[in-house]
């Protein structure tokens, strides 16, 4: 056999943007994981400052941002709050990130959190006399299952009818909110003696214990950080393991990257879509359970506090990688916790945080934009993530 000549050819497949490269990349290089996001955050803060000037004046910037920073990082209390807020963000972020990895856009984390949180609360006050060691996992599991159901529905619809999950999950969000309003006024659920929609409080045996309570700070029960934070970190590890070390994860990623090749390889795209949406919903449901069992102690309308939408930004910022999601969640937790302090101590309202977060997403989603502004070189091009309306 004659030796085949060395043919130098243009690599095929480099032209059109590679599927998940931008949001769920293989190699995490420093530029894309640290520098660009940092610059994105910086840019967002700068633009945020512009908004402050526009509404409150130039001298409002410094007190606002100082309050923001101290509320997020300075002192045990701030750190506790930051991590506390980060906890449901981690879980919801994992939910969205898992979806992205499989090419699915789960905007329904809000609704899944709502359903999960509600079911967790019901489990929380329904079983009297259980020891905490049983009640807590039971209630968390209930939240997991509630969210799983709310993720299963759009997953099934997408797999079987091609109905795009962006629309169905958003619709299910609204349906979840209205259902919550209704259920919270039902006799067995509504709190005694109340006429507004608010649930009974959960039993103490189902509340997630605080982990920093031994620190001698702050009256009224101490710092609020609870065990849910550790649960969230554990789930981050589980999702990592699932995605990169198991056959399931390989299938999810393949279906996300190229469903045709996945099918050729013997994978069931239908099963993958349904499974991913269900697991994604379950994670979001856990976030809901976390909030209700760890912080609020009950369910009331709006308890999800737009965490599900933040989760989208998180997943993008964290490149749909569990580690990245954790870091981004802490960042967003810092923004929120700090934002509350900012709202209280300065005249700038908390909606500014929403703008900053949106800007962060913009800058993250358009890395070329950041590069252009700051003249940072390198990196891969792309952006294409989802598949449009068709299956």
């Amino acid at each position, binding site marked *: *056999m*004659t030796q*085949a*000549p*060395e*043919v*130098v*050819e*243009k*690599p*095929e*497949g*480099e032209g059109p943007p*590679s*599927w*998940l*490269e931008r949001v769920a990349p*293989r190699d995490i290089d420093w530029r894309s994981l640290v520098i660009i996001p940092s610059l994105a955050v910086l840019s967002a803060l700068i633009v945020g400052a512009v908004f402050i000037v526009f509404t409150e004046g130039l001298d409002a910037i410094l007190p606002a941002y100082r309050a923001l920073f101290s509320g997020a990082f300075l002192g045990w209390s701030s750190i506790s709050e930051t991590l506390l807020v980060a906890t449901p963000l981690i879980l919801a972020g994992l939910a969205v990130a898992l979806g992205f990895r499989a090419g699915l856009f789960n905007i329904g984390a809000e609704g899944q959190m709502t359903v999960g949180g509600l079911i967790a609360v019901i489990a929380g006050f329904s079983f009297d006399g259980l020891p905490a060691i049983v009640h807590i996992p039971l209630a968390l599991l209930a939240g997991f299952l509630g969210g799983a159901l709310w993720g299963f529905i759009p997953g099934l619809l997408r797999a079987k009818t091609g109905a795009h999950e962006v629309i169905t999950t958003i619709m299910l969000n609204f349906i979840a909110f209205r259902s919550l309003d209704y259920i919270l006024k039902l006799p067995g659920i509504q709190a005694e003696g109340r006429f507004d929609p608010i649930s009974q409080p959960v039993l103490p045996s189902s509340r997630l214990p605080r982990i920093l309570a031994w620190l001698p700070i702050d009256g009224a029960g101490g710092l609020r950080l609870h065990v849910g934070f550790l649960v969230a970190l554990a789930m981050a590890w589980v999702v990592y393991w699932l995605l990169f*070390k*198991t*056959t*399931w*994860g*390989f299938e999810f*990623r*393949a279906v996300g*990257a*190229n469903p*045709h*090749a*996945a*099918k*050729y*390889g*013997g*994978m*069931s795209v239908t099963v993958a879509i349904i499974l991913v949406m269900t697991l994604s919903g379950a994670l979001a449901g856990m976030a809901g359970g976390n909030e209700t069992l760890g912080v609020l102690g009950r369910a009331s309308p709006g308890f999800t506090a737009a965490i599900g939408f933040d989760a989208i930004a998180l997943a993008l910022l964290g490149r749909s990688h569990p580690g990245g999601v954790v870091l981004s969640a802490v960042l967003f937790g810092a923004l929120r916790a700090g934002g509350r302090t900012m709202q209280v101590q300065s005249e700038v309202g908390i909606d500014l945080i929403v703008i900053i977060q949106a800007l962060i997403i913009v800058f993250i989603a358009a890395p070329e934009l950041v590069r252009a502004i700051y003249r940072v070189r390198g990196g891969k091009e792309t952006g294409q993530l989802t598949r449009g309306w068709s299956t």
Partner: protein
Amino acid sequence: MRLELKNVTKRFPGVVANDSVDLTVNSGEIVGLLGENGAGKTTLMNILYGLYEADEGELLIDGRQVRFAGPGDAIAAGIGMVHQHFMLVPVFDVTENVVLGVEPTRGPLGHIDIDQARDDVREISSKYGLAVDPDAVVEDLPVGVQQRIEIIKVLFREAEIIVFDEPTSVLTPQEVEDFFAIVRGLKEAGKGIIFITHKLGEMLEIADRIAVLRRGKIVGEAEPGSATKENLAEMMVGRPVDLVVDKSPAQPKEVVLSVKNLVVQDERLHNAVNDVSFEVRSGEIVGIAGVQGNGQTELVEAITGLILPLAGSVMIGDQDITLASPRKLHQLDVAHVPEDRQRDGLVLSFDLVENLVLDSYYAKPYSKGIVMDWDEARRHADELIEQYDIRTPSALLTASSLSGGNQQKLIVAREFARDTRLIIASQPTRGIDVGSIEYIHQRIVEERDEGAAVLIVSSELDEVLALADRILVMYRGRIVAEVPGSEATATDLGLFMAGAGV
């Protein structure tokens, strides 16, 4: 009109696609541009057509330098291009496709004068002998007719120089003759023609002059009168090329694949495969010849489990796999090299390790239960890269970093390295370099000699003639001929491919 490309150079990251290319075309002549896949022909033509800009060199028309900012400029200058992959909007009708971009309009709002357009199309159609129905919707039309539309498009814009990029890949040998008649007619009408192909026989037949491009450089010119296929091939590739595949006679044994009365619908619910029956035995290569679009794609997809047939049966040995999934077929040691390697065969953003276990990850040794053993997969990948001569610095690069030929070798490596009972290879050497083609052909014959049953589906007649022990011809969803490989000729097969056997 005289068109000259002088010293044209174009670079992409890591590769020089065109290197100081000189080419001249005059009105009334047919210049052939010959080169293998990846030699730079399409890049050169894209520069000519204004889709790319050359890094160095110039374009001259009648001695004047011209610069094209986009296809609009090239079209205005009288250059027309009939692309290899048709640039037709499937949901528009013929007229709309022809006038797109140069629509005749009436009134200030840009209302399209569709009647005028239709008349214009009919006029060109009859003048140049290109029969089309102006109101037919393009996606319903057969490929040969679509090609005529592309030619009408070019003539509608009053092109003086027409470039044909691989125009015959979708035609039967008879249709190629008709097509050549049209091309000669255009030459008589004074058009200058650049004819791009990698098919040596056609080049010798149609061109007045042949320029050979190899790795971006013009390495020689040839006159059809004096050149032979062998010297053209050698110029094209840079070394003597074996145009025939070395193989010993087949020794077929028991029947492995048995297809009976298969009916498969395409997405538009027509019977793409319409009552097909055939067998493939262990130790033989069966080739299915036919112009693309006669049901071969659907046939292979149905056999390999990617789509479900409507009626009929497919058996492996005595196991019914008619409705079986790709996974089941994999478990039965069926290997499939798919037609569209980037869409079906690879996940471009995955690395080579992941791609090499794409269809075998689910079982030992690459996984136990739900847990993947990536170390084992990596070992396997390193071995295969070595064995199958896949040119890459590392197994951890993404598949998108490989050239077309190496991507195909990767898929072949993945499929052939297992125990294989049946191999189904669809268009196995489409769009890849000669070296890789030779390699893959060799491996296919080796597999056959080790006892596999091999089914090849290819629209390259030469490939089928070279490889197959037994040849079936597919036309409009049916098998219309069966010929032993040793007796088959291109002419006979061509007749069957055009429907003569029906």
